[in-house]
Each structure stands twice: as structure tokens, then as C-alpha cells.
């Protein structure tokens, strides 16, 4: 009997110890950065958002495009995908099985056009055009059309105006960041960025040529001179130096700014029954808003 009790005690101790040591791993998906590795990003992430629970380990995984990240979420390779609010809204509007679990506020996020460092002249022209488009409210109007209700409607792709004999600006688009940058059903680039570019072309009286490439090849396309401009470089407008922008690339002023990142989860029937959703308990973050509390989708 003593032996039996000892064995049970040892087993219980072992189970308890291993249970205590076992860390829960939360895997978060993000779109690949241009110049930052997963490890570097995780380091910064840990400093900003510390997990509440010591037994919680956060793993960041990068994906080259939204499709790959969605599929990773579908097969539980990641627990959540983190997207800028406009793309998250687009995803949720298009597919009702995605829900926001958490919203993180981060001041001063922006999208900017990228140029080769040798092309300062074009950068200045774009900045001048953007300043004019901001002051006459053109950019605000375009935000209303493309970003206010993303995914609910699909605005027709823009017809670019042709300026006879004018210089042509070649711009790389990826189609990987709806509703800012996507490819319409007829194969033409569409979205907020193309509308902004159309206005810039009109302002500068230059022809715009859009070239569809993979997101991962943006920097190579720019530095090799294959394209003159790349759109959607994600920047932090509060910083002087952009850590994620590779050397040899210069940026325009931001043409769109936002301050929320949304954690998206895939809601499955079995999850609804057994787990429930309270991911906010995972984090002690500086500024968290739960969308469900505020009534927003």
C-alpha cells in the first residue's frame, strides 16, 4: 500500500511540475516586413506588449501575402492574424467567419510611396502633389469611397488619364493589401492607392503605368530601376529613421495614416461551443479596446 501511495505521489508531482512548466504558445501572423526579421520584430513586440501570464510564449510568424496567412489561420498554424484596421474590416466584411478579438492602438502608422535614393526629384514631386491633394480634401474624399466601408462595395478600377508625350512613371502594385491595393476581377489594379496615384498623375501631368509584382520583390524592383515607385511602405510617422525601410530607399510623406491594428480570429463552430473567446486576457497592453465592448464590428 505504501509503495502504491508513493508511486501515485510521484506521478502527481511529475504531472504537477510538468503542468506548471508547460508554456502556452500563442502564434500570431503578420505580413512580412521588408527589412525586419521575425526575431527582431518579436524583440520589439515583447518590449511593448508583455504577456500577462509568465507561462505564455508569443511567437510571431511572417507571411508573404494575405492568402498564405489566412490559410495558416484556417489550419491553426497561427492563432490570430494581425492586420491594419482597414484590411481587417475588409476581411470581416468579405467573410463573416472572421472576427476581431482585440484591437491595439499604435500611434502614427502610415503608408508612404517608396523611391530609389537616386530619384529624389520624383520624391519631391510626389510630396508636392500629396500636399496639394491633402489641402483640397481630395485624399479625404477618396478615403470615404475606398476605406469607409471596405469590402462592402468594390469601386471600379480607375481609368488613368493619358497625357500625350508626357513622361511615364512605372509603379509597382502587389494586390496584397485590400482595400488599399488589390486586383479587380478583370485583372486591373484597383483600390485606394491607385485612386491616389491617378490624382497624382493628373496633378503632375504624367502618365502612370502600374506593374503587378509579388510583395517580396518590391525592393528589388525599385533598386534595379525596373519601377520608379512602389506603394504601401508601412512607416511609423513618429520616427525620424524607419527601421523597416531598406538602405537606398527614400519615402514620400504618408498618404494615409491609421492607428489601429486588429487581431483577427477564425470562429469555428466547435470553438464557439467549447472555448469561448477572451484573448484580451492574454495581454497586458498599453491601450486595448475590445471591439465587442464598443459595439463596432
Amino acid at each position, binding site marked *: 500500500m505504501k509503495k502504491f501511495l508513493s508511486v501515485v505521489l510521484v506521478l502527481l508531482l511529475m504531472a504537477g511540475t510538468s503542468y506548471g512548466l508547460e508554456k502556452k504558445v500563442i502564434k500570431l501572423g503578420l505580413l512580412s516586413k521588408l527589412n525586419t526579421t521575425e526575431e527582431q520584430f518579436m524583440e520589439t513586440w515583447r518590449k511593448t506588449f508583455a504577456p500577462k501570464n509568465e507561462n505564455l510564449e508569443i511567437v510571431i510568424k511572417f507571411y508573404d*501575402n*494575405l*492568402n*498564405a496567412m*489566412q*490559410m495558416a489561420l*484556417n489550419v491553426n498554424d497561427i492563432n490570430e492574424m494581425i492586420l491594419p484596421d482597414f484590411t481587417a474590416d*475588409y*476581411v470581416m466584411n*468579405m*467573410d*463573416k467567419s472572421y472576427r476581431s478579438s482585440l484591437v491595439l492602438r499604435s500611434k502614427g502608422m502610415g503608408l508612404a510611396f517608396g523611391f530609389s535614393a537616386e530619384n529624389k526629384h520624383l520624391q519631391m514631386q510626389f510630396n508636392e502633389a500629396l500636399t496639394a491633394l491633402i489641402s483640397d480634401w481630395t485624399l479625404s474624399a477618396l478615403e470615404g469611397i475606398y476605406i469607409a466601408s471596405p*469590402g462592402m462595395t*468594390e469601386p471600379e478600377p480607375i481609368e488613368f488619364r493619358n497625357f500625350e508625350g508626357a513622361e511615364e512613371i512605372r509603379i*509597382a502594385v502587389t*494586390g*496584397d493589401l*485590400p482595400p488599399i491595393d*488589390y*486586383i*479587380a*476581377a*478583370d*485583372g486591373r489594379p484597383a483600390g485606394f492607392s491607385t485612386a491616389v496615384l491617378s490624382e497624382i498623375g493628373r496633378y503632375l501631368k504624367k502618365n502612370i503605368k502600374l*506593374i*503587378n*509584382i*509579388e510583395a*517580396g*520583390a518590391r525592393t*528589388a*524592383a525599385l*533598386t*534595379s*530601376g*525596373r519601377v520608379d515607385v512602389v506603394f504601401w511602405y508601412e512607416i511609423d510617422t513618429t520616427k525620424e529613421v524607419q527601421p523597416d525601410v531598406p538602405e537606398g530607399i527614400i519615402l514620400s510623406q504618408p498618404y494615409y495614416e491609421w492607428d489601429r491594428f486588429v487581431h483577427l480570429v477564425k470562429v469555428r463552430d466547435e470553438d464557439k461551443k467549447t472555448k469561448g473567446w477572451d484573448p484580451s486576457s492574454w495581454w497586458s497592453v498599453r491601450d486595448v479596446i475590445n471591439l465587442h465592448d464598443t459595439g463596432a464590428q
Partner: protein
Amino acid sequence: MSLNEILYRILIQGGSYLTILKGLRATVEISVFSLFFGTLLGAFVCGLRMSRLKIFNIPAKIYIILLRGSPVLMLLMLMYYGVFARSSLEANTIAIVTFSLNVAAHVAELLRASISATDFGQVEAARTLGFSAFQAFRLVTLPQVIQIAKPVYQSTVVNLIQWTSVVGYVSITDLTRVINNIASRTMQPMITIIIGMLIYLALAYVVHGIFALTDMISNRGKEKEV
């Protein structure tokens, strides 16, 4: 959303099927031209590789090792964003050049292996009977080489079609790129990618069918001769 609605959004809405066909055309065009030029270049490289002169066979060996050992995406990006960055060549042309170079290395090795597998004694016998070197090659060696090389060549063709799926990195909108674009727009990656895979599978079966047809024709020819 029902499956029918999803399929409608992916395949029909806004003329999506036309975009898919355009992508398919780009994939087929690049594959066919690369195969044609790659096979010609491969036969030439094979000739150099089998030469007894070191001045020919060493460069051919190096070419085969380099091209077979390097990932085709790296080669494509090197050609497009490096070697031909300042040229006015179209992206499609650069892709065809790149894939032709890659296919040539594989075809060269494939032909060399097939030629080595034939019995040299048969050529000697043909020469003894008065055949010229060219006649002996055309009438004795070549038919056997074709038979030996055919199954592996068929795999090379199917592989080539699959390799072309990386051309999106050099601004070509091929079938894979179109499928990715549709998946991003509709937010239905799983179904869209399955559709894309089925189209690639269909292409592989077309290749298989063409090879089966050539087998059938050659068998009928033999039967008539008999």
C-alpha cells in the same frame, strides 16, 4: 455564403474567368517557348558535354552543374533585376530565356544519360554495314534515345509548367498570380487555390495526353511496317 455563390465570385463575377484565361495563356506561352528553346539548347549542350575535347566538355559540365543546382526563382530574379535590369526586354522574354537556360541543363543531362544507355555495338555494326556516322545516329541511336528519354522528358515538361509559377516576382501575371489576386480580393484562399491546382493538374494531364498520343502514333507506324 453558399459554395455556389463563392464559386460565382471566384470564377464568373466581373469577367473573372477571362482574367484566369489570360493568366493561363501566359503560363502556357512561357512553358511552350521555354521548352522549345531549352530542348534545342539542351541538345547542343549535350553535344558539347559528350565531346572528347576538354575545351568543350568542361564548360558544358560547369553550365549543367550551375544551372541544375541553382533555384530557378533566384536565377529569374538575377536575370530580371540584375543582368537585364537596364535592357528594354519584356519580362516575358526574360522569363523564357531564364527557363530555357534551366531546361537546357536538365535536357542535356537527360539526353546524355539516354545516349549512354544505348548499345554502342549497334552503331559499330551499322557502320560496318556501310551506314555513315550521321545515318547510324539518326536510324539506330536516335530512335532508342527518344524511347529512353521520353518518360523523363515528360516529367521535365510538367516540372517546367510548375516552375513558371514564380514569374509573378518579375511582374508577369501568370496563372498563379491571377489565382493569388483572386484569393486576396475574394478572401477565399482555400477554394481559389484548389481551383488553381486543378487547372495545373489539367495542364499536366494535357501533357500526359500529348505524350500518350505520340506513343500511339509511333506504335501504329511500327505495326504498319510489320
